């Protein structure tokens, strides 16, 4: 007969301990986002008492550190952020969707693995490298056409390249989730590949494709370093594709190092605005994804 020793902590007590400590870690991990948003908000709150807040819209210029005649206009930078994001999406979204379609519907034994690998690697290239390439290669090229080269065009090319993998991967995933039987049924009834793609696949995956584009959009708005290196960083509403500009993210990166008092507070407010733009996009994407999984 075996003697079952019981010289150990009761397993249920160890389990309880583990459950509690892992629960604690989980609480900590889940609260990080609250801390991040909370601290940014707290640091930006003084802005409401220090200045007339409407001035961030009504002021035309941005001279927050000027002791006599400070101005706080954020509009040029907000416009800069939106314009560069829009221009980047304008070419990267259709291109990304096309590539995903190629991977799913027009695969080639030679190209498809290369394209997949490229997408994966491209997603991992740091923004600083994209920015550096833009600064050293792209900007001089654009400067040949029209000086100074650091421009909306350079910004949207670099930014578009950065969000391209996101759009490709998400769209591909959406298209891939189509049941195989659908394609077989279509083929069996004599529906061609293009007709299937156009009338069945794309409409069915609308949600998933859109969420890829939204994800790219969110990433583009938040991107800092790459844009900073190719945008020229002049606070103005760009009049053409060849004009330099500044975005709200690059503004934070450029000025936080020396900003004090109201200037600093306003930079935090900018970060709060940035969060306020990204969070609803996330919500939209979530709903798109659930719609897709239910549809």
């Amino acid at each position: 007969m075996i003697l079952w020793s019981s010289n150990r902590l009761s397993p249920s007590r160890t389990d309880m301990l583990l459950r509690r400590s892992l629960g604690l870690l989980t609480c900590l991990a889940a609260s990080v986002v609250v801390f991040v948003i909370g601290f940014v908000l707290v640091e930006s709150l003084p802005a409401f008492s220090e200045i007339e807040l409407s001035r961030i819209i009504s002021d035309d210029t941005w001279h927050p550190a000027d002791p006599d005649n400070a101005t706080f206009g954020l509009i040029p930078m907000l416009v800069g952020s939106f314009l560069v994001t829009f221009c980047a999406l304008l070419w990267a979204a259709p291109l990304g969707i096309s590539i995903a379609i190629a991977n799913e519907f027009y695969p080639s034994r030679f190209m498809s693995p290369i394209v997949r690998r490229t997408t994966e690697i491209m997603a991992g290239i740091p923004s600083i490298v994209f920015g550096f390439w833009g600064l050293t290669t792209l900007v001089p090229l654009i400067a040949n056409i029209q000086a100074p080269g650091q421009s909306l065009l350079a910004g949207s090319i670099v930014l578009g390249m950065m969000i391209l993998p996101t759009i490709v991967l998400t769209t591909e995933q959406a298209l891939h989730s189509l049941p195989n039987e659908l394609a077989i049924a279509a083929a069996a009834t004599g529906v061609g590949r293009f007709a299937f793609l156009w009338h069945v696949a794309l409409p069915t995956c609308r949600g998933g494709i859109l969420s890829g584009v939204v994800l790219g959009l969110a990433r583009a708005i938040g991107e800092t370093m790459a844009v900073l290196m190719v945008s020229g960083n002049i606070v103005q509403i760009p009049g053409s594709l060849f004009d330099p500009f500044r975005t709200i993210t690059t503004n934070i990166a450029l000025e936080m190092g020396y900003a004090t008092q109201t200037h600093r507070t306003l930079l935090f407010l900018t970060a709060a605005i940035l969060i306020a733009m990204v969070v609803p996009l996330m919500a939209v994407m979530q709903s798109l994804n659930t719609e897709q999984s239910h549809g």
Partner: protein
Amino acid sequence: MTCDSPIIRVNQLEVTYGEQVALRDLTLEIPQRQITALVGPSGCGKSTFLNTLNRLTDLLPDCKVSGSIQLNDVDILSAECDLYEIRRRVGMVFQKAVPFPLSIEKNLTLPLSEHGLPRSEQQKLAQQALKDVGLWDEVKDRLKKPAMNLSGGQQQRLCIARALALNPEVLLLDEPCSALDPIASRVVENLIVSLRKRMTIVIVTHNLAQAKRIANHMAIFWIRNGAGTVIEQGPAAALFLNPREAVAQEYLSGTCG
């Protein structure tokens, strides 16, 4: 209805998953050191019943169990009973062999060390268990190799050995042969019969021929009023010969269920 020296007495057992009642009003006695076969059509709660016997139902979040299950003098369902002790005393083997993704030896020693046995003891028991299931000669040279590399029948015997190493009083088997080929299935079946002298065995099976071959005692599960329950129980031979309930008669003769 009653049997000599029952080791497990189930009284008025009811199991619900959320809204759905899986078992209701189940009363059953399981005789000691015999093979009790649980038979009946799919979906009438045989596996659920087996799971309640060593409280695996605790793993399911919405599952509620009421009634009483006496294992000798301990009420398995009471809150005070030591869950880990119960699971040592009541071993279980599943339909699909579940070797841990570890070496063959580690598969056996891990639960032993969990129950606080010293290292030297662990290896002795592991070796004995492998001999008991007739696996020792097949695997003694590769004890450190992954258990996943064994064949299906070997994996299932390893799982039985893993349960045996803990020296349980009751061994629950949930269709242990249904995923095996006929030859491996026969090996496992013979093994089960050979274990009868040592412990009480409760086996769920869909194979009536198998039940007939190995069982001493039998319980027939059926759906009554939307929930599973035992409609008839008793010595296997007598039941096969002369079931009281009409449905049981039809089931055993293969015309329904």
